[in-house]
């Protein structure tokens, strides 16, 4: 047995192809990215070491701080939009209700659709000339609110968050339902016999027992909203006047439009740090003891 499963050559054949690919095209680039962020380079002329100057410049760059603020707004907006709504849908569908499977399948559908297609579709909804939103307002007699939604610098980011919510609420709902299914049914039976109302059951059983998953879900929402790119790239391109600029779109612009690779790598490093921090932070904030059933 040992001869078959402990053979070093066999192990190497099974592991090395994937590991080398992963190391060369994922791990090494991360290290190289951190390294590049200390240089000023356009990849043609020799790179110049500038120390922390890229980072200092970033925080003095009005557009970058704008993008950072927008990203934070996006994180907050996504948390507020996703968690309660997903919890509401999840809680309804988790109880034995007719058509539960159908609704779950439909609600999840938007998140398998290409972000570019979703962005284009919603830019038709928000369109000022034939857009469905304006037509709808006209029908219900609020024609005075009609406008070019994505061109309004106060509303554009908000409009994008609505789309993000449309696309991903089903995803977070399924995560929460999966957690609810792990709760032993006997708890609800006992609570039902004791005459606890549905609301009481939710606050006393469901919510405390799925708290660990809500924590994981919150991390997913935070890291997810740091990574949004296609929706904004397609719907607004970061405009109007950087009102919807995100770190991801700004990084793309700095790297592949103005060819400031070092500067752009520094944005990449900041995004990486933010993702790591959000994982650590949420561990701290949502700290909850292991649950015993």
């Amino acid at each position: 047995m040992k001869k078959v499963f402990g053979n070093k050559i066999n192990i190497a054949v099974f592991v090395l192809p994937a590991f080398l690919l992963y190391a060369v095209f994922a791990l090494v680039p991360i290290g190289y990215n951190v390294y590049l962020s200390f240089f000023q380079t356009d990849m043609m002329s020799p790179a110049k070491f500038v120390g922390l100057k890229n980072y200092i410049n970033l925080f003095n760059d009005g557009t970058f701080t704008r993008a950072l603020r927008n990203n934070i707004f996006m994180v907050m907006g996504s948390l507020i939009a996703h968690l309660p709504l997903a919890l509401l849908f999840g809680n309804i569908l988790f109880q034995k209700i007719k058509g539960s499977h159908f609704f779950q399948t439909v609600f999840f559908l938007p998140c398998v659709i290409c972000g570019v297609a979703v962005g284009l579709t919603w830019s038709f909804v928000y369109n000022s000339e034939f857009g469905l939103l304006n037509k709808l307002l006209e029908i219900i007699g609020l024609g005075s609110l009609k406008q070019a939604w994505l061109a309004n610098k106060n509303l554009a980011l908000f409009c994008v968050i609505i789309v993000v919510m449309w696309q991903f609420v089903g995803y977070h709902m399924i995560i929460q339902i999966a957690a609810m299914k792990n709760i032993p049914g006997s708890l609800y039976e006992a609570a039902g016999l004791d005459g606890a109302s549905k609301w009481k059951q939710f606050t006393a059983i469901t919510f405390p027992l799925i708290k660990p998953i809500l924590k994981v879900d919150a991390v997913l929402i935070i890291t997810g909203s740091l990574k949004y790119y296609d929706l904004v790239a397609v719907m607004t391109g970061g405009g109007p006047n950087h009102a919807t600029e995100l770190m991801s779109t700004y990084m793309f612009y700095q790297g592949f439009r103005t060819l400031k690779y070092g500067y752009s790598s520094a944005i990449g490093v900041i995004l990486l740090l933010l993702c790591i921090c959000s994982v650590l932070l949420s561990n701290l904030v949502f700290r909850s003891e292991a649950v015993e059933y």
Partner: protein
Amino acid sequence: MKTSLKDRLLLVIKYVILAAFTLLCLYPIFWLILSSFKTNEELYTNPWGLPAVFRIANYAQAIVQGHILRYFGNSVIIALSAVVISVILSSMVSYAITRMDWKLSKLTLNIFIIGMMIPVYAMIIPLFSMFNKMGLLNSYLSVIIPQIAISFPMSIFIMTGFMGSIPRELEEAAVMDGCNIYQIFWRIITPISKSSIVTVGVVSFINVWNDLLLPQIFLTDSSKMTLPVGLTEFQGQYSTDYVTMIAAVIITIIPSVVVYILLHRNIMEGMVAGAVKG
């Protein structure tokens, strides 16, 4: 059992909420399909109703003028090669991690899994520079290779979870019968793991098919572009020809929607697996 008025009212409210969100999820797709048969004038004057005639001119236009079929072909080549290679390599690693005896298996698993929280933005500039030096920019490989590397953490996470639960007796019996490790892997393990392989495959397929960033950066030649990049090109060139763009959007989303209808159980399970077990 008593069903009080209050309970029934509550049930009605629940269904109203569910129906409203169902409408919100499905109506945009329904609207796209209807609009893809309209003329631009109809889109302006009659955005809600049925098209006067179901004309396929927009699809023809998207294919002939918009080169949508070419983008479609590129997307198929890139997505299929990335998925096939990724599934084969990650199932091999997962097998070695869960079943073979070596000291670094746990560490290797952790190195792969840590990748789940790393944003792709932290590696695109170096990848661009590497592919530039290797002369790979503007080739399918420049998108396929990183897509495979990015898919490993999730795939390996799901497959190690599954393979760890296969009973050992099967392999022990196979060894007694004189099978070598490759025969065990191909003839016993992969057939048993079929469901998790399908899950990992479809989820990777959807991720690669939908991705905009990597092809947008690495493929600048329009003959190599994938559908999402093609759509953004479209948006720039024919910014007022909305109905053609809508036809192109429909062509783009059809494969993921069809795959989803056929395999939604696997997709839902696979996409949330990282969260639920993590």
